[in-house]
């Protein structure tokens, strides 16, 4: 039996008033109703940041470089193929391709890249978050939908939910004024879903948002999901202020992270999976997160340049991840991009 859907007002009340353990228990129950078999999944993939040159200069981003910066780069095809080859050799099933909005790259670069990857490898390309998609489309003078259709044709399989930050234009104006708007982000996702592509959704909190903004964000995701059903997972993570314009700001604490995670699980009754972010929180916290609503550990094999650039660096072996999942009382399984189980471990 599905518990009754929680309203925005009730969610806000819970978020503001409920103790962490109470929220956690609710999230754990919601998780167990959706995943009664007690399996926690992860994907073996690699994060490939094909370029770090970006015109957006988001104020919370420690990763981007200007076009004339000596540290700016675009990966060559050879480097890229090598990374993919290694990924496949290690049992990887997907690559996560994300990068900056690089004015030197046009849609032909992307199409060529996708085609050549697909020609050489049998691997799922999970790539290009909405800010990139919308930039590619704009530069090619195409609608988002047209651009998505062409990219898909060339080999793009699914889309990561990055760039959502907080879907509140009030907050976005402060922290990422040049980035795609909330409605722009949602539109890319809607178009992708209607074309039959699956995507994830993220939320970056711990910046300038208020509790109400978090609930608005969750509601925007839930509403779109009711229409399309295209989101596979929701991934909340906390803003890492190191090396950004917000350096010195206190990052979200562990309690705050778990509260947001738990609320997400409780609110998003139509999104099947919630991911713990060990990359930003560390493995110990990610394990605890499995009791606060998460049923997925994200990816094992990581080249997380964006988070590393902000001075946070954790690394985890598959073994450690499996141990930590089991230690929380769950069974561990490797999954593919679509959350199908590939291997029980």
């Amino acid at each position, binding site marked *: 039996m599905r518990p009754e859907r929680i309203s925005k007002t009730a969610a806000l009340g819970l978020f503001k008033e409920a103790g962490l353990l109470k929220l956690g228990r609710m999230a754990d129950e919601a998780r167990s109703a959706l995943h009664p078999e007690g399996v926690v999944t992860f994907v073996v993939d690699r994060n490939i940041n094909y370029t770090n040159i970006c015109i957006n200069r988001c104020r919370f981003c420690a990763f981007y470089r200007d076009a004339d910066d000596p540290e700016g780069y675009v990966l060559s095809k050879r480097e890229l193929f090598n990374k993919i080859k290694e990924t496949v050799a290690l049992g990887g099933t997907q690559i996560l391709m994300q990068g900056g909005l690089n004015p030197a790259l046009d849609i032909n670069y992307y199409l060529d890249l996708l085609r050549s990857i697909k020609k050489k490898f049998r691997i799922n390309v999970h790539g290009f978050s909405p800010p990139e998609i919308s930039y590619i489309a704009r530069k090619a003078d195409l609608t988002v939908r047209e651009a998505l259709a062409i990219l898909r044709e060339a080999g793009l399989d699914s889309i990561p939910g990055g760039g959502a930050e907080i879907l509140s234009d009030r907050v976005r104006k402060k922290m990422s004024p040049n980035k795609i708007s909330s409605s722009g982000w949602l539109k890319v996702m809607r178009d992708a879903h209607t074309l039959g592509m699956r995507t994830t959704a993220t939320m970056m909190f711990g910046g300038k948002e208020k509790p109400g903004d978090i609930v608005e964000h969750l509601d925007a995701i839930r509403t779109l999901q009711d229409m399309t059903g295209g989101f596979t997972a929701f991934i909340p993570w906390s803003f890492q202020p190191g090396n950004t314009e917000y350096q010195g700001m206190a990052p979200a604490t562990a*309690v705050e992270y778990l509260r947001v995670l738990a609320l997400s699980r409780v609110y998003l009754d139509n999104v099947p999976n919630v991911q713990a972010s060990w990359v930003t929180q560390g493995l*110990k916290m990610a*394990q605890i997160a499995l*009791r606060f609503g998460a049923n997925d550990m994200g990816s094992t094999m990581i080249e997380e340049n964006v988070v590393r650039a902000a001075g946070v660096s954790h690394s985890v072996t598959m073994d450690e991840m499996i141990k930590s999942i089991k230690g929380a009382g769950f069974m561990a399984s490797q999954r593919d991009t679509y959350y199908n189980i590939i291997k029980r471990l």
Partner: protein
Amino acid sequence: MLGEIREKVHSAFRLTREDALKLFRTDDIFTLGELAAFSASTHNGDRAYYVRNIHVNPTNICVNRCRFCAFSRSRGEKGAFELTIEQIIKNIEEAMPVSEAHIVGGLHPDWPFEHYLKMLSAIRNEFPELHIKAFTATEVDYMRRISGKGLKEVLWRLKEHGLGSMPGGGAEIFNNAVREKLCPEKLGSEGWLEVTEAAHASGIRTNATMLYGHLESYEDRVDHLLKLRELQDRTFGFQAFIPLSYHPMNTDIGGEGASGIEDLKTIAVSRLMLDNFPHIKAYWVMLGEKISQLALLFGADDLDGTVIDEKITYSAGGVSRRGITEEELVNLIRASGRKPVKRDSFYEPARKWRVKA
């Protein structure tokens, strides 16, 4: 499943060994957390303590080479150090304002007992207001051996020269079979308990620790807690219990260390079992800021301090940065829903340097 234990906790009945094992084995960390938090509130209300302190390691040269210890060196080995008394004074000077100095180090092959006494008096003379919490039972036992004096006399002389209280290190895990594998040369569990009991008898309050997450079983952890509870029943000399999560890096034992859930469970079970301990400390240098903050919801009431230097955990790949500011500590406590209280070394609210927190 935990219903009976809940009854006991709410009616202040003592938990048994079986209860503790059940709590360790449960996946219901919510009930565990609620019970431990309830118990913490009966001891300390909604307060969560921290202290402005400095950690001083006078030397890392040690005649023991415990296998889990990434800190110690042999004499002449790369990275070995020994601080002069002047350097120690200078380090404390630079850390001011702090209300407590926490001093622990290796068992130096050449320093005579008098050196430790000199160190204490020099610090006391220089900083008469500073509380000196110094020397684990292992070190005190070593002083007994190098000085040829009785335990009582060693403790009395230390106290006379300025020792205010003792930290609880060196307890590791009391099960001697495991202990033999971890630190064969170290003072055994009976010795640790003997020195600690003698300290309490001399009016020196101490803490107690437990190193977990290495080779021990749940039974070992529970037995460790029971031994401490028995001693505390006799002496009431313990202030805080500090579970220390083992860090595998750079040690001979290897392994993975405890998971996050294990850390929280250990804090919670400690709070529930050690009903006669006033305080449970989530030592943030060992646990990291994140887990120690969560520990405040699982029975802990103390985060330790604005530690300036802590070589022991760092050499073993500890998870936290070198120091934390008072503001950050207060923020962690607030965000957990507890009330931050800056304390002195006996858990009284600190009078000096009160900040508008």
